[in-house]
């Protein structure tokens, strides 16, 4: 710092005595600000490598993946001439486009077949209308042997009668813009039709329901983690060091065990021919025919995930409880509080930051969980992330997966915001 003791500041007669300056005549405020800025820049320079690393390897790929949820250049890139001709065609007319469109389609497909991009376009459009995939594959096979003069309306309809329906062309036209809301609509159980946006038929709606269930199950899991974790953390903080360490190892041991091993262990325990049911039958509490169904449903997901996420609740709670001086509770009691009042009014409020940290940690981990629900969730215990994984790795509909991911991300951020408003993020303490 190049500021000086105010006492030695040189104050001339014609200068405002209120403005303190450094020895070289710069006002102290300005000099201070400069110094701070330099400090900040230095700090920024120091973290720059990390910041760049995070941007390039984390933020950029995520942004790129999320952008797929609206990106739809494939139609206009594969069929540029057709898209141009279709711009003047009105699906409302109820008539298929005229010869110009078929000629353009022929020319576009001729190029596409050579570059083998027509099948890719077919699978893209098949997400919106079943049958597009084979339509393009079939047409592509024939187009190679076709002369330009043969590219008539009749010839195309002869290849596949779908070219003679308005709907096929309407789908092409509807999805020709390079940016599409199609994936987001799909992700919200809606679809784009000739009449505009509408809900999908009842028997195809699934995502809104799954979002709701993911939210509900994650909250349930967070709550049961808190219920089970709070007493354990309390015990850990209250016990003398030697026994607390032993207990700590018991908490951490499953934490270090492979996730898959723990999930499979729950299968062995919970299944109908499993350890718990066998024990219940042996004691006569349930009959052999009435064995409890505790896995491959929501119960299974809740039990297994609560167990897996429990350490994430216990550890922040413990680290907060450890800092609470026992003298507060003693003081409360000496002033006449009952055990309950001393706990509830004296101890509990001080653990709220730990609860906040644990709850956020568990909830955010739970809402994106994938492998445990897949293995023990059956049909009614799976999460939205299972569908995202399905669309990434099996159906290859990455646009839809990205749209579902964006919605999930926004939902978490919204909840985070609400949490901040209600509890206050400053009240969160990890230790």
């Amino acid at each position: 710092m190049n500021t000086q003791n105010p006492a030695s500041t040189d104050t001339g007669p014609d200068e405002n005595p209120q403005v303190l300056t450094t020895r070289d005549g710069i006002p102290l405020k300005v000099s201070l600000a400069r110094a701070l800025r330099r400090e900040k820049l230095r700090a920024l320079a120091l973290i720059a490598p990390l910041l760049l690393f995070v941007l390039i390897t984390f933020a950029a790929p995520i942004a790129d993946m999320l952008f797929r949820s609206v990106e739809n250049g494939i139609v206009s890139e594969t069929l540029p001439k057709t898209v141009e001709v279709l711009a003047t065609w009105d699906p409302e007319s109820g008539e298929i486009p005229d010869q110009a469109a078929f000629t353009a389609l022929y020319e576009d497909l001729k190029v596409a077949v050579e570059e083998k991009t027509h099948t890719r376009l077919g699978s893209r459009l098949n997400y919106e209308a079943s049958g597009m995939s084979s339509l393009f594959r079939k047409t592509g096979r024939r187009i190679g042997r076709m002369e330009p003069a043969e590219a008539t309306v009749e010839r195309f309809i002869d290849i596949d009668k779908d070219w003679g329906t308005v709907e096929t062309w309407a789908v092409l036209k509807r999805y020709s813009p390079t940016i599409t809301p199609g994936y987001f609509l799909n992700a919200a159980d809606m679809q784009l039709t000739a009449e505009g946006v509408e809900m999908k038929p009842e028997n195809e709606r699934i995502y809104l329901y799954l979002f709701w269930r993911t939210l509900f199950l994650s909250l349930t899991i967070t709550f049961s983690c808190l219920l089970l974790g709070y007493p354990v953390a309390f015990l850990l903080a209250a016990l003398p060091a030697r026994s607390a360490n032993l207990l700590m190892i018991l908490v951490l041991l499953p934490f270090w065990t492979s996730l898959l091993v723990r999930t499979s262990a729950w299968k062995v325990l919970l299944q109908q021919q499993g350890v718990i049911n066998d024990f219940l039958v042996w004691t006569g509490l349930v009959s052999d025919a009435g064995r409890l169904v505790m896995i491959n449903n929501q119960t299974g997901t809740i039990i297994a995930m609560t167990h897996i996420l429990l350490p994430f609740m216990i550890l922040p709670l413990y680290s907060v409880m450890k800092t609470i001086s026992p003298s507060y509770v003693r003081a409360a009691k000496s002033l006449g509080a009952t055990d309950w009042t001393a706990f509830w009014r004296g101890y509990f409020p001080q653990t709220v930051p730990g609860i906040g940290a644990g709850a956020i940690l568990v909830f955010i981990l739970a809402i994106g969980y994938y492998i445990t629900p897949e293995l023990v969730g059956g049909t009614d215990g799976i999460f939205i992330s299972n569908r995202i994984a399905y669309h990434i790795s099996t159906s290859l509909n990455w646009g839809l997966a990205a749209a579902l991911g964006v919605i999930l991300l926004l939902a978490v951020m919204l909840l985070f915001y609400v949490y901040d408003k209600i509890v206050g993020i400053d009240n969160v303490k990890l230790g």
Partner: protein
Amino acid sequence: MKFKTLLLAGAASAMMTSGAMAIDLTIVSWGGAYSNSQNEAYHKPYMAANPDVNIINDESSAEAVAKLRAMNEAGNVTWDLVDVVASDAIRLCDEGLAQEINFDEALAPAPDGTPASEDFGDLIVSDCFIPQIVYSTTFGYRTDVEAWNGREPDDICDVFDLENFPGKRSLEKRPINNMEWALLCDGVAKDDVYDVLETEEGVQRALAKLDTIKDQTIWWSAGAETPQLLADGEVVIGSTYNGRLFSLIEEQDQPVKMLWDAQVFDLDGWIVPAGLSDERKAAVMDYLKFATDTQRLADQAKYISYGPARKSSAPLVGKHAELGIDMAPHMPTDPKNATNTFLYNYEWWADYRDDLDAKFQAWLAG
């Protein structure tokens, strides 16, 4: 001093040339008993004949389609040969992620000179796909279920018969195969199944049939689940791949039998990723010619009960390498097992998969 430098340089260049000669082939497959059968039947003999080739096994076939697409976008394909099921191969070919193969040029003819394309025959379902094995999805059932009073299922529709065959079932968590079986047992003729399934009523009909056993069904997503569930007694009857059931019955000696009725045939085989350098492509094509010849395909059946895809391999199928039992009766293609089979329609599912999957998942969740 000079002599020493020369010696060092010589040694270094010798090491470099030997380094350039050794070729690494990354071959992707399913892992487990299946990879093991390929290792014994293909990789080991090939490496013995070509000491400069080193085969690296990667067990990523389950995510192969997504990973190949990602590699292709990144412009860095690190796989040389990938084992996938036929429907995935068709999609990879559609997406331009797999190379088209000239079958007669690239593959060895049968011992009697029949060209490869004829030897594989109908099983060539895509220009990019070299079939390796025929497997089937079929049912296994426990033989010790008391409630069945000695009855044993012999018909696919017994799966839907909760009265005579009570107990939990396991079915795959996807519409493929289940929808077809449901319609067959709802009185639809085999040839009409896909025509019916194309209509909304047909889908509702299939789901309504599945509804009758929905709350008695555990839905699996990995092929190993049904054998485990059967072994634990969690289910009494369940669908999975026939090779898994073979190992459950013959290798692990569980009280389980096969219900071959209405087994659905499917194919598994190789694709060569698009975008390989000429050098790598040449190496992988050489391996491919060896690994898909008549004898090699027959050899694989010594280790796993999947039928070889070449017609000329069938007579060469021998005994299991460890158990010493005849493998032919355990093949899905054996005439005794194949009295009533169902053919999976690739083209149809490529078109309707997304649509039906949405309906099926909505039905499952509801």
